[in-house]
């Protein structure tokens, strides 16, 4: 009768697995990469820039300035960053068609028919000595304002959150509340 082959001991399997586990535990970095997504404008040669000086009406620009002490100047007066979002929302929506807030123009859009779309543009300018953290917080508030407006419109029109809509409905809403943040060249090269 043939001898039975002895079983391979499995006691050390746990040790090996532990070793691998500890290796992965140490090397792992669990940072989900997330961030504020923005699109930079196309590079234009400064020489060409001089010529096309298309005027935008004063009331259509929402001026946000951040100085080197990280103070915020919104439309000519000091503002706390907490209030920036509401100011930006009011500017972009202009619910009562106020004289000092941006003009609107009629646009034909799917799902909405003819709607009045704002011509407002947000202009952001920072100083060379502005802290990046503050700059990003300002950007975040401005993006948040637009996102909130889009979300409110989506809920009012389709009864759903903006993120849950189909892409063509999202596009229609995007046309009504465009994310127009223009960034001017920073000032203050030699303080």
């Amino acid at each position, binding site marked *: 009768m043939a001898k039975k082959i002895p079983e391979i001991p499995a006691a050390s399997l746990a040790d090996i697995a532990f070793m691998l*586990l500890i290796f992965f535990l140490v090397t792992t970095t669990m940072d989900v*990469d997330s961030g504020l997504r923005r699109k*930079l404008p*196309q590079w234009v040669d400064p020489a060409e820039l001089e010529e096309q000086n298309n005027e935008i009406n004063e009331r259509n620009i929402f001026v946000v300035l951040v100085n080197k002490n990280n103070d915020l100047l919104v439309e000519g007066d000091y503002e706390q960053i907490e209030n920036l979002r509401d100011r930006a929302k009011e500017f972009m929506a202009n619910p009562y068609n106020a004289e000092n807030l941006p003009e609107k123009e009629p646009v034909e859009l799917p799902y909405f028919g003819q709607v009045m779309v704002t011509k407002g543009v947000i202009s952001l300018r*920072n100083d060379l000595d502005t*802290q990046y953290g503050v700059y990003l917080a300002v950007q975040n508030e401005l993006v948040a304002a637009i996102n909130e407006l889009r979300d409110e419109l989506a809920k009012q029109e389709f009864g759903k959150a903006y993120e849950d809509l189909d892409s063509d409905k999202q596009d229609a809403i995007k046309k009504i509340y465009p994310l127009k943040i223009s960034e001017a060249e920073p000032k203050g090269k030699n303080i």
Partner: protein
Amino acid sequence: MSKFRKDDGKELPPISTASLPDIVFMLLFFFMVSTTMREVTLKVRMHIPEATELSKLEKKSLVSYIYIGEPLPMYQSTFGKAPRIQLNDQFATVDEVQDFIIAEREVREEAEQPFMVTSLKIDENTRMSIVGDVKQELRKSAALNINYSSRKRAER
């Protein structure tokens, strides 16, 4: 006499460890799947700012990173304390950003190139001058999709 005293010298059987490898392997696989190996060694210190309007970076293979921050203490004797740019594994100047983007672009397939994203990992105390310079270079090299890396902040 008591009903409950029944241990007549019998020892407790040892707990079976046969399932231990299975449990450990399960953990192991979890970490193996969720892990992302960091390809670069960071030479700058960054404290990433917080934001609320975040979007996740979906395709890791399309992302290139630019780090800006104060050099780590061990490099401060050579590079000083002023914030510096790090591309790949070394410190770089603003002029090198364009070359970096071009090199990153070469590696990717042509069809994927329009979807490339540059993730800016910048310390929150950095001054905007250096950030602005980098942004200008990115515009010049037509890498227009950017992502200001930030952490999630609880909504007020």
